[in-house]
C-alpha cells in the first residue's frame, strides 16, 4: 500500500498526493494550511476578504516572505488539492460581479454538503425552491410559490409557517438570497452546486453565452434568447455605445451595468457596518 511512501513524505514538506503518481504539485507550508483552515471556516469569502486572509496567514507564519500573487497562491494550493477532489473555486456574485471564493468538493454530485445540516423535509424544500428558481425567467422564485409546495415534501409534514423559517435558515446559511419576498441562489450555492445542478436539470438549466457557466440571474436577448450574466454583460459591452447581441446582432435592449471595480469600492469609503448591512441585503 502507499502508506509507507506517504509516511516518508510526511517528514519533508513534500506535496500530499496520496494517489502516488508523477503529478507535480505545489508545496504546502503553514501559510497555505492556515489559509485553507480559515477559508473552510468561513465557507464563502469575497475577494477583498480573501486577500486580507492571505496577508494574515503570511503575517502569522512567514513574515519575511513576499506575499504571492493571489491567483498563483490559489493555483498552488489547488494543485495539491487536486488529488483530493476538492478545490478553491472562484466565482462572482450574479448581481454585481463581486468575485467570491469557496472551497468546494468536486466529487459530490448531490446536495450532500447541506445534508448534515438539514432534515429530510428541509432538504426537499430546498430542492423544490431550487427547481422553481431554475425554471423561472428571472432566476427568482416567490415565497408564495415555494410555500405552496409544502404539501409535496418528503419526510415529516411541514407547515407553511415552519417552511418560512426554514427558508430564513437557508438565507442565514448563505444558500439562498432573499429580495423583496423572492428567493434566488446565493453565490455560494452556485459555486458549490453548479456541477450538481447541471447534471440534475440538464434541460432547464441556463448558461451564460459569454462565460459558459451556470446562469440563474441575468439578461437575455429578446430576439434570439441567449442569456448573459450581469457582470458578463458589463464586461462585454464596456465602453460600447451601441451594444448588440453577440449572437444575432440585434440591438441589446437592457441597461448595461457598471463593471465591478474593487478600487472604487474602497475609495467610496463606506464604513464596514454599512457595507455589511448592504451585503446582507444583497447576498
Amino acid at each position, binding site marked *: 500500500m502507499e502508506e509507507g511512501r506517504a509516511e516518508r513524505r510526511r517528514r519533508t514538506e513534500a506535496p500530499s498526493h496520496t494517489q502516488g503518481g508523477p503529478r507535480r504539485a505545489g508545496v504546502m507550508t503553514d501559510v497555505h494550511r492556515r489559509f485553507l483552515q480559515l477559508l473552510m*471556516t468561513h465557507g464563502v469569502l469575497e475577494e477583498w476578504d480573501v486577500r486580507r486572509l492571505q496577508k*494574515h496567514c503570511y503575517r502569522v507564519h512567514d513574515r519575511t516572505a513576499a506575499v504571492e500573487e493571489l491567483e498563483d497562491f490559489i493555483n498552488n494550493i489547488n494543485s495539491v*488539492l487536486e488529488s483530493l477532489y476538492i478545490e478553491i473555486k472562484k466565482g462572482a456574485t450574479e448581481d454585481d460581479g463581486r468575485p467570491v471564493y469557496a472551497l468546494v468538493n468536486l466529487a459530490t454530485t448531490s446536495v450532500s454538503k447541506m445534508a448534515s445540516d438539514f432534515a429530510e423535509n428541509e432538504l426537499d424544500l430546498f430542492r423544490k425552491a431550487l427547481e422553481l428558481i431554475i425554471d423561472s425567467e428571472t432566476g427568482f422564485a416567490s415565497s408564495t410559490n415555494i410555500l405552496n409546495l409544502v404539501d409535496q415534501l418528503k419526510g415529516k409534514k411541514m407547515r407553511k409557517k415552519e417552511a418560512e423559517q426554514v427558508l430564513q435558515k437557508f438565507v442565514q446559511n448563505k444558500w439562498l438570497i432573499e429580495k423583496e419576498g423572492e428567493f434566488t441562489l446565493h453565490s455560494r450555492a452556485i459555486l458549490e452546486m453548479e456541477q450538481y445542478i447541471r447534471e440534475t436539470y440538464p434541460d432547464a438549466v441556463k448558461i451564460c453565452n459569454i462565460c459558459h457557466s451556470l446562469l440563474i440571474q441575468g439578461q437575455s436577448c429578446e430576439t434570439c434568447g441567449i442569456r448573459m450574466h450581469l457582470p458578463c454583460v458589463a464586461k462585454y459591452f464596456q465602453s460600447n455605445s451601441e451594444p448588440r447581441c453577440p449572437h444575432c446582432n440585434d440591438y441589446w435592449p437592457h441597461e448595461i451595468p457598471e463593471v465591478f471595480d474593487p478600487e472604487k469600492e474602497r475609495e467610496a469609503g463606506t464604513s464596514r457596518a454599512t457595507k455589511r448591512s448592504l451585503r446582507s441585503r444583497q447576498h
Partner: protein
Amino acid sequence: MSEQSKDVCDPNSAAEASSSEVNSSPGVPGVLSPPASQAATLAGPETPPLGPTDALLASPPPQAPSEEGDPKALQQASEEGRAHQAPSAAQPGPAPPAPAQLVQKAHELMWYVLVKDQKRMIIWFPDMVKDVIGSYKKWCRSILRRTSLILARVFGLHLRLTSLHTMEFSLVKALEPEELDRVALSNRMPMTGLLLMILSLIYVKGRGARESAVWNVLRILGLRPWKKHSTFGDVRKLITEEFVQQNYLKYQRVPHAEPPEYEFFWGSRASREITKMQIMEFLARVFKKDPQAWPSRYREALEEARALREADPSAHCPRSSVSED
C-alpha cells in the same frame, strides 16, 4: 469464528491510528490509550459490546510495519500483535477493497469532517461510520489514519478523539500560534463578539451569569430577547440553544429559584478553544482599559497561560517568533 461478525470499529483504536501518525506537528500530545477493559464497555446502540480482540480484528492485518515514527505506537502495535497472534492469523475474511477505494473513502471522510467542523457540529464517531464509512467498517482504522494524515498535511488540523465516553472527535488546529483567527476577519466578529461578551461576563463574575444579567449586558449592544436582529436573528435562540449545542455555553436552571431562573456557564468547547488571556484582551479592547483593571482575573489568566506553556513547551517553537496580531 463468531467474533468476525462483530466487525465494528473501536473509535479508540481508530483514534490511536489517527494520533500516532501526526506527531510531526509540535505540541500535540498523543491520545492516551485507556486500559483494555474500557474498550470493552464501548458499545454502540445496536452493536454488542466490543472486546479488545474485536478492535484488532477490525483492522487490516499488516499493522505494525506501517506505523513507523512513533515509538509508542510501535510498542502498542507489537504488544497487540504478540497478544493476539492466533486469531488474526487464522481469519480468511472478505477480500479487502482496492487501495483506491480506501483512498476515496478517506477523502470522503476528510470532507465530511471538515464540513461538520465548519458548521460547528459535533463529529460523532457512530455518525462517521454510518454516513461515510458504511460497509468499509472493517477498514475504518486505516481510513481514519489516512484521513488524519491528509488533514494534518494539507490543512494543518488534527483529528482528535476528544471524548472517549461520548465518542466525539474534533478538529484541532495544529499550527502555532493558536489564536482566535476568527477575530482576524471582522465580518465574523458579530457572532464571536456576542459569545465573547457573554463568556467574559461569566468569567468576570467568577461564577454563572444569570440570564437577566446577560440580557442587561446585551441590551448595551441593542439586543433584546424578543427582538429579531438583522445579523444575529433570534438572539435568545442563538445563545440558549445554538451556542449550547455547540458546547460554547451551558444554560442551566438555577436550583431552588422560584419563579424559575436560568444561568449561563462556560461550555466545554469554550474552555478548550478560548484562553482566559484572550478574554482579558477582549475586555481590554471593549472597555478601553488595561487588562490589569481586573486584577484577580488577570492573575488567573496569567496562571493559565503559564500552565499552558509548561504543559506544552514545544508549543513555542522558534519558527513562530512573530508577535500576534
